[in-house]
């Protein structure tokens, strides 16, 4: 698994190198550069921080300081199905924290972590702005409103079934070829 991540990271770093040059070497570009990396690769690998520091000619600790200051940046690859549980006030009033707890228990990981098979990760977010649907969880890009403890298991099951179906279809297609 670790090796797999390392080979992946090597590819990612090459890609980042090629995109860095599109930015001017200005201190003010630090956050936009980090956002570019996060957007393209969903997280910021450790080595990428060094690359950015070298490129902007500022100390590594400054890049690290800025990257860790802002909530947007993450330092581990997320799961294939990232789960975001909204913990804004409206969702909290309607027990969003209990939804989070149920996801954590079902997947046996804590918020901020990814399952060992890299299928799921859990994050808490502060208000996604669909307060009318509270409590809300977002899986991938899909918003699931009016969540309840009893819906958590069904939601995860549906994703797993969907995935198995897709894999079977893939197999039949490649089998036909």
């Amino acid at each position, binding site marked *: 698994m670790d090796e797999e991540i390392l080979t992946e990271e090597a590819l990612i770093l090459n890609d980042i190198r090629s995109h860095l040059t599109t930015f001017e070497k*200005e*201190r*003010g*570009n*630090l*956050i*936009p550069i*980090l*956002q570019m990396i996060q957007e393209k690769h969903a997280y910021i690998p450790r080595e990428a921080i060094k690359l950015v520091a070298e490129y902007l000619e500022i100390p590594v600790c400054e890049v690290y*300081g*800025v990257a860790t*200051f*802002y*909530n*947007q*940046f993450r330092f581990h690859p997320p799961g294939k199905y990232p789960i975001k549980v909204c*913990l*804004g*006030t*409206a969702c*909290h*009033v*309607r*027990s969003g*924290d*209990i939804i989070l*707890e*149920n996801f954590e*228990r079902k997947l046996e990981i804590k918020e901020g972590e990814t399952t060992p098979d890299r299928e799921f990760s859990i994050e808490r*977010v*502060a*208000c*996604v*702005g*669909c*307060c*009318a*649907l*509270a409590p809300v969880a977002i899986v991938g890009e*899909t*918003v699931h*409103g009016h969540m*309840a*403890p*009893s819906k958590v*298991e069904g939601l995860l099951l549906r994703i797993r079934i969907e995935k198995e179906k897709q894999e079977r279809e893939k197999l039949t297609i490649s089998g036909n070829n």
Partner: protein
Amino acid sequence: MSKIRTQLMLCGGTGCSATSPAVREVFEKELERQGLSEEVQIVETGCNGFCTLGPVMLVQPEGIFYQKIKPKDVPEIVEEHLLKGRPVEKLFYVEPASEETIPTMNEIPFFSHQMLRVMRNKGLIDPEVIDDYIARDGYFGAAKALQEMTPGQIIEEMKISGLRGRGGAGFPTGLKWEFASKSPGDIKYVLCNADEGDPGAFMDRSILEADPHAVLEGMIIAARAINSHKGYIYARTEYPLAIRRLTIAIQQAREYGLLGEDILGTGFDFDIEIYEGAGAFVCGEETALMRSIEGKRGMPRPRPPFPAQKGLWEKPTILNNVETLANVPQIILNGGEWYSGVGTETSKGTKVFALSGDVNNIGLVEVPMGISLRTIVFDIGGGIPNKKEFKAVQLGGPSGGCVPEQHLDIPVDYEEIAKVGAIMGSGGMIVMDENTCMVDMARFFMDFIQDESCGKCTPCREGTRRLLEILNRICEGKGKPGDIEDLEELSSVIKESALCGLGQTGPNPVLSTLRYFRDEYEAHIYEKRCPAKRCVALLKFEIDPDLCSKCGACFRHCPAEAITWKKKDVAVIQKDKCIKCMTCFEKCKFGAIF
């Protein structure tokens, strides 16, 4: 060119966007099939405001309002209403109290108590088409400011209007501009704060999504007033739709010569760039926001010097909130006198609130200053769902406080709200019913604040964490005598000594809940009991045989098989198997579990 006889204003705001694209797709197909594509136009609007009913659609020009539209309803709307002229009644709004069916938008109480100024274009224009905005007097204010007024006159008009900062602090906008205009220097900046961070607040996002040009126009006028040539909009990266619409709006304004060099042939230059914030609550604080644009950690610095003297890159800068700026064009166009005609002695104009929580009509509302909180919660909001009792309404998010029943008749006014221990805030308004635990609410906000504290000053970094520790202990049933007094003392020290607004207001939720709901704290500490049945550690997970209806709903849904039940028998929870997931609390309709 064909004539469009009907426009379908389909809401594409974030609240509706989970479902409205599918509805739109079916509409396009059905209109095509019935040969109506030429006469009937679908327009994707910004947030309509009535999010509870999403997706919603207004049929213009008749003003028929459809709610909760599903893709399968579309063929019927097209066939019956658009083709045969018989509106589909089953999709009309039904007033929950009177069960009366209301066909048109203007008659629905949710809308009829509102006064639209900032949101006057919501749901009526396509936010991605500049001509729609201009057709509704858009950019007329900017034209007047640039062609007919001096910077001094603009500032004077703003001062007459009495407009105060809508970000929460309520500083008079005209004064802020005057300070910056008097600061020496050739380079000055106009910033728009669109880093709406309060959890439970979505006013600014909706304004940007529904009417982005109003904000740009406000910035152009502000730039003229202080003679600035460069502006930035600092927007939350979590608002992709708002950012997309702003980007389109800026591009169109440039094409029309409303941004860039020599605007409207007046020789005045001004351009705007969007800067995506990376998610830090403290960046809503003005000095922190400026550090962030400079590419640094968003940490506040002591004031003075104020940004009007030394702001972004040490140049004179003004920072206004989205809603504040969206008010500006109409003030310039209609005059400050007109604007101040609505409101109270010290608070003029309207205020937008994001109404959410335990209330029937969740959504975005704009009301005249001076209206009572009770009108907002019960008339516009339609009261509390599920026949539950109202407990409190929370204003101002993590910097604010709650207003209980006995103060619900106070008017919306900066000073009056402060008197009862809350703040006007940026507009988050969360209604809480009897099942909300106020200690847990305080803990929730403190958890947020200590997480978002930037760490620069000790009172905030350490103090908020200690407050959270005490609150956590109380909620876990480990509270001890003296905790309440410690909370009070620590809160007052943090308020007095923290560096910026985040720390100075951070303890407010604790102080405000202590002020009105001290008995709940005491129940947690001395009786180890959560009166609202919300703090999991204080629940017994037992079933009251007197309340149990023997229905077995808890038994069927328990994922841990921890409940035993037989027909016509009271259910029993086996504590060794119970995982405290709260499913049985959710499923029990009789409140029998405690």
